[in-house]
Each structure stands twice: as C-alpha cells, then as structure tokens.
C-alpha cells in the first residue's frame, strides 16, 4: 500500500510540474504543419527517385 501511495504521489508531482511549469515549453510543442509537410516531401522525394531508378 505504501509503495502504491508513493507512485500516486510521484505521478501527481510530475503531472503538476508538466502541466504548470512546462506548459509553454517548446518541449511540448506540436509538430508544425510546415515540419510535417517537409518530412513527407523528403520521404516522398526519396521514394519517387528510388521508384524511378527501380523501374528504369
């Protein structure tokens, strides 16, 4: 029981810290639409070039 309480307390401490002190930190930023698009474009370009090389 004591161990379970310790875990519950530790969880609450962490949640409070993350939600209050870190709420505006870039650590928790969403991946922007621009970054996602760039990522998909890079993966897509490699795929298209490889596909063309493969079928030629």
């Amino acid at each position, binding site marked *: 029981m004591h161990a379970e309480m310790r*875990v519950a307390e*530790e*969880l609450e401490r*962490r*949640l409070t*810290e*993350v*939600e209050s*002190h*870190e*709420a*505006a*930190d*870039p*650590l*928790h*930023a*969403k*991946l*922007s639409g621009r*970054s*996602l698009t760039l*990522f*998909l474009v890079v*993966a897509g370009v*490699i*795929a298209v*070039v*490889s*596909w063309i*090389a*493969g*079928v030629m």
Partner: protein
Amino acid sequence: MSARTETETETETRALRVEAAVAEEATYGSLPLTKNERTWRAGDFGWVTLSLAIATWAFLTGGSTVLLVGFSDGIAAMLLGNTIGLAIMVLGSVLLSQRLGVEQYRALKSVFGAVGIAIIVFTVVLVTEMGWTSLLGVMFGRAFTEISNQAFGTGFNVEGPIVTVFALAALLGGWSLLSRGPVAISKLNRFVAPGLLIIVALMMVLLMSQHSWADLFAAKPLAPFEDETLNFSMAVEFNLGAGLSWWPVMGTLARLTRGPKAALWPAYGGIFIGTVVAQIVGMAAALMLGAADPTAWMVPLGGPVLGILTLLFVGFANVTSMGSIAYSTVLAIKQSSGQLLAKLRWPALCAVFLFFPAVLTLFPSFMYGQFMTFVVISGAFIAAICGVIIADYLIVRRQNVPLRALYASGTNDPLRFTGGVNIAALAAVVIASVFYLWVYNPITLETQPIFRYATATLPTVVIAIVVYLILNWLLYVRRGLGAYGQADPFAAAGKK
C-alpha cells in the same frame, strides 16, 4: 560467515538491486518524464538510432533482398521500402510519446484503450519480438557452428541440431544479460555498435578488394521468380516491413528527446542511414559469395583467423541486440499485464518471454527460411496499427492527448471507450491487416494487381485510416466519448 555464504549473500543482494532498479523503471518509467529528465537533442537521438540500425539483422535483410533482385534494383528497393516504411513507423510512434514525454504503450492508451493496447502488446508486439529474438539466436547458432567447423574441422551441418544447441546457449546468455537490467545492456552496446561499424567497413573493403564493381552490378539475384516486376515489388514490400519493424521500440526512446523535430528526423534519418549502410554491405556480400546468410560470408571474406574473429563478434553482437529488443518487450508486457504478472520477478518474467523464442530455435532452418514471410506478416499488422495511430493522433485529436487521462482508471476514465477497448481501433487494424494479406499473401505469394504499383502497405495504411475515422466517429466522437476535442494544456508550447 563462510566464503560460500558470503557469495550467496552477494548474489542475492545483486539480484535484489537489479530487481529494484527494474521495478523502478517499470513503475516510474511509465510516468511522464519532466524536462530535466529529457536530455536527448537531435544528435544524441540520431546516434542512438544509428547504433540500433547497424546490427546483424541488417546484413540478413540485405542478403534476403538480393534473393529477388540484383544490386542496383536492391538499392532502389531498399531505399523505396525503407523511406516509406520508416516514415509511416515514425509518424505512428515517436510524435505522441515525444509531445507528452510518456512511454509508448502508456501513450497508446489514448488510441486503443487500456485493454486494447494490452491486446496489441500480447499479440502483435509479443509475436514480432519473439520472432526477431529467435532469429538472432539462430544466427548466433549458425555463427558458432561455422566457427566450430573452421577452427576444429567438426563438419557440423549449419541447419542441424547443433545450431539449436548454440542458439539455446545464446538465449541463455541473453537471459543472463536481461536479468542484469538495462544498465548492463547499454554498457555492452557501447562497444558493440562501434564494433559493428568497423566490421561493416572492413567487410566492404575486403569484398571490393576481391571483386570488381562491374561484377557486383552484373551479379544475378540468388533465387528470383520469373516475373521481374513482381520480384522488385516483393523486395520493396520486404524492406517496407523491415522499416516498420522498428515501431515497437521507437516511441519509448523518443520520449527522452527535447522537441518534436529532435524526435522526428533522427528516428527516421538515423535508422535510414544505418540500415542503408549495413544493408548495402549485406547485399554486396550475398551477391558476390552466393549466400543470403551473413554467417556464411565471414570466413570466405576474411580468411580463417579474421573470419572466425568476425563471426565471434557478430555472435556476441546478436546477444546484445537480443537484450535490447527483449528488454523493451518484457517491460511492455510487465506494464500491460496489470496485476496478472505483477508478482513475477524480473528474471522469471524474462525467462517466460525467452521460452517462446527457445521453442522456435528447435526449428532453425524454418526461422531462417521463413525470414521474409515473418517480416512481411509482422509488417502487415504494424502498418495497420500505424495507420490507426496516425488517424487518431494527427487527424482526430490534432496532436492533443489528455495527459491525465492516460493514468486514469475505472468508470471515471475518459479514455475508457468500451470496457477499456477502442473497438473502432482494433476493428480497423483487423480489417486493414486482412486487406493487406489479400493484396499480398506472403505465404502463398498470391498478389492482386494493385500490389505491383502501390505496394500492399500503402493502401493498408489508407484503409486503416479511413475505417478508423468512420468507425471511431460513429462509436465515440459523435457520442462525446473518448476525450476528443478537449482544450490543449500545451497550446502555448513553443509559441513566442
């Protein structure tokens, strides 16, 4: 106190220390990490993923690719398969865990529900990782059988029962390593990853000093089918499966990074570069030496002394790779099992997991022979799972997951769905996986026309996304269930 008693006490103390450390990780590791614990920048994470990718399985993947296609087509298939497979895998694993700093399977409660994710862990994750573990064991067995034959002239069959004996010894070594906890595994990995990098470079130098580039590009595939387009499509699909196979371990690692870009690019780039480098060597060696099995290359390439030393290193590298993948799997099992396995001590839990790969090693040629089938089938399920996660996290939730709800339980749990299961998510996984196996059945090798032009994975991901969006809206979103559309507590994060 006698010497024997002192030794026993020492062993017991060490066992208890390991037990406590692992229990701490299993318990506290599932809690959200705070900023000061998230220390990895893009470069740190990139090195970790690169080290993971340059492993012995990449040699085997390269060797298996050229069963179907030659060197230039093999490179194209490898790049095409891995870029798509890794992109899907990364979007389906690292983003969610990174934003919240939460371990992968805890974070995926928001997609599948608490019971739903346990079902995924005890089926797809467990079977996939058991397969890879047994494969590493068999590779170890073949490496040591080869060493015995070369060093002592024993003449053992590399598909015979002696391979099983060595493979079981490898699993025992893996268990011993696993039982010592994550620190021992990471300590060994510090030597193994650079060592494998040296072996990759050495193999390529030796190979190209004995053969010309013209020979390499002119070499015929080892065991192709008649239809060249189909060969290429199957090679691409196999590499897609290999890229997707990183999904079970990637999210938990990404939670240590300090931003979405520091998680996204290294997870994709590190694995991609590491795989490409090791696989190119694997393909070249297999084509020039006429065998897909990496353990058959070392002695012909390096001669008896260097070859045996390389085989020894590759064998032990397999044990640390086994430790790395088995550790994350056993941890996932421990966390997903609730009270069911809570009382089992860490070494016993590791032994339970390793029992199943041990059974598979009784059929060493089966595991090697069915390697491509295994990778493709596990890829079918992981592609569907990633599709569902992408739909939920990026489209429905728009990257906003209620952090506290991940730790809630009982009837007040906002992520309870239907008795702890998001039926829409599991149904979408099943439907999309069945579709995959209809488009490309890796056992009968039957394919549908779409397979040649669109692979089986890409339409599977699209189907998983569409089916999930429809079912999830019908079952949960429109009824206000599943904690969708809530205010984002991190809305201001990263905004200046």
